């Protein structure tokens, strides 16, 4: 197990260095001068330009800048936003809980609906039920989620007026963040109605972000189940007259879950990409919206730091999934 972990790390570290080089070089590839952009129409005097360049460190050789950047990262300093002048890590940690809360709810939504749907489809293979589920899953899988979000807003927020249009909680409620998870914080606050408000703000974004993972998980569960159901030991168990429930529940499910867990792990990257669109549609103050806003504000240090942090999260999650997979299935540990 230790060797497996070390082997994984040996791949991970060069990849991370590569990721940092890519994230770092983006802002150097830009046409035009980032310092001049700060002042817009106002012409900057050459002295002022030199002063700001020096402040931002743009006047040093690029290798020095890179090493300096990496040195900062090792000390937990991801740089400072040129717009807000605040440390990037601070902003990231203030906004990440919002994304994490949304992503967690979306994954739960996808797993809770997707796995049973996949299992039933596999058991009733070829039936009308199977075809409906798989057809729906393919529609979900093909869904442009930014449009899906708009449709839900039109229907639930516009026509029915059931759910709010945007944000995490009604402005009427105000309490300092404790966990950063609005659902938990609203309960902790003890304010009447706060939890209900937080939950109603969460429903549509959860559905939108969970749609594609739901479809993928349902499809994956079905094919994993089909494979397991055709294996000899399941046939034997059936032949022995075990009830279908026991066959599926005890024998097949455990083995079928191995590829499904990997699939769920892989959805984390999909979720972070989906968060970009979902958070934009619902004005959800998380890191996806933060990245989009930064792209529009041309806040390059934020784009650079955000890319790196997001890539790091995905890599760590993938590592954990690998480790879990190794634990469940010792055959691949070599």
């Amino acid at each position, binding site marked *: 197990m230790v060797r497996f972990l070390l082997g994984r790390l040996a*791949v991970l570290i*060069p*990849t991370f260095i*590569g*990721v940092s080089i*890519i994230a770092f070089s*983006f*802002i150097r*590839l*830009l*046409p035009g001068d980032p310092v001049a952009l700060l002042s817009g129409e106002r012409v900057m005097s050459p002295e002022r330009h030199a002063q700001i360049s020096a402040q931002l460190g743009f006047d040093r050789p690029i290798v020095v800048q890179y090493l300096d950047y990496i040195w900062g990262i090792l000390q937990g300093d991801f740089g400072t936003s040129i717009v807000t002048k605040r440390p990037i890590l601070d902003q990231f940690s203030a906004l990440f809980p919002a994304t994490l809360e949304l992503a967690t709810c979306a994954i739960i939504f996808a797993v809770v609906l997707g796995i049973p749907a996949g299992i039933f489809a596999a058991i009733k293979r070829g039936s009308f039920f199977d075809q409906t589920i798989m*057809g729906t899953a*393919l*529609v979900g*899988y*093909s*869904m*442009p989620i*930014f*449009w*899906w979000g*708009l*449709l839900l*807003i*039109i229907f639930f927020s*516009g026509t029915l007026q059931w759910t709010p249009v945007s944000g995490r909680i009604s402005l009427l409620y105000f309490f300092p963040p404790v966990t950063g998870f609005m659902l938990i914080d609203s309960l902790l606050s003890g304010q009447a109605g706060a939890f209900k408000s937080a939950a109603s703000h969460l429903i549509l974004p959860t559905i939108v972000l969970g749609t594609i993972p739901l479809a993928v998980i349902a499809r994956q569960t079905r*094919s994993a189940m089909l494979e397991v159901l055709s294996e000899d030991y399941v046939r034997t168990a059936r032949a022995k007259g075990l009830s279908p429930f026991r066959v599926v529940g005890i024998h097949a499910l455990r083995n079928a879950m191995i590829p499904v867990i990997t699939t769920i792990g892989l959805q984390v*990257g*999909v979720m*972070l*990409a*989906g968060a*970009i*669109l979902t958070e*934009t549609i619902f004005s959800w103050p998380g890191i996806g919206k933060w*990245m*989009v806003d930064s*792209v*529009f504000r*041309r806040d390059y240090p934020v*784009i650079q730091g955000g*890319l790196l942090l*997001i*890539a790091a999260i*995905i*890599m760590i999650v993938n590592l954990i999934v690998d480790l879990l997979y190794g634990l469940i299935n010792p055959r691949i540990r070599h």
Partner: protein
Amino acid sequence: MANNAVNATTSAEPSTRSRRAAEFWFYFSENKGAVIGLFVFLLLVVVALLAPLIAPHDPTQQYRDSILVPPFWQEGGSASFLLGSDQVGRDILSRLIYGAQYSLFIGVIVTLLALVGGIVIGVIAGYARGWVDTVIMRVMDIILAFPSLLLALVLVAVLGPGLTNAMIAIALVLQPHFVRLTRAAVMAEKTRDYVTAAKVAGAGHFRLMFVTILPNCMAPLIVQATLSFSNAILDAAALGFLGMGAQPPTPEWGTMLAEAREFILRAWWVVTFPGLAILVTVLAINLVGDGLRDALDPKLKRS
């Protein structure tokens, strides 16, 4: 994994070829969804090709007297704007028809770019092995470490918003999948007898790589290409929606959605139809992709 069925036919005779085609069609047509998908897809191609003939209006013509006209079946609708008109009085149906051109064009170009680039890099990596392989695969890992849409978004921000740059960015984030597939297939094929035979017969590296080995690795690549085709359309629409893809007044579906966003509570049709068009197109391609996978991948073939 998918090569066993195909690789036996290196010296493909015409007769074996047609037999294989027939076999392929047999499996493909067993999947009704795939056939429907293929039909819808072909219909879209025809619509895109004949756009100038069938579109009732010029897609950028603004009829200032007919702003936000609802579809014809609704009250206030008009037969000259079958699916209604948008915020500056352009005919939505015509814009959708022309939009099909853009979406299919994006899908084709992006997939070709990613496919060709991925194959070349993948064949080199799988054939050369050693440090070349290591470097290439590390670079691919790096690209795959980012969420694809985020990477494309940042790339477009760096290159400048626009359809061309969006297509380049999407192709770039899609091609590692092709590299990985090609490399794995090439590595599996390399040690097989027919390759050794060709080597003994004096075939050069280039010939070995692209003429001898590659044609036997095509099945998984074709499946991946279909997937990329639909992903390219989705991602390009998402970038357009974020304002980083095709720029107005281009009738690209994602860009249309972005422009229409401010009307979502007032004029459902300007939002609904472009998204529906994206969904139908992507769904059709994914159906075809499922069919292709069933037909080309022997593992899932029903016995």
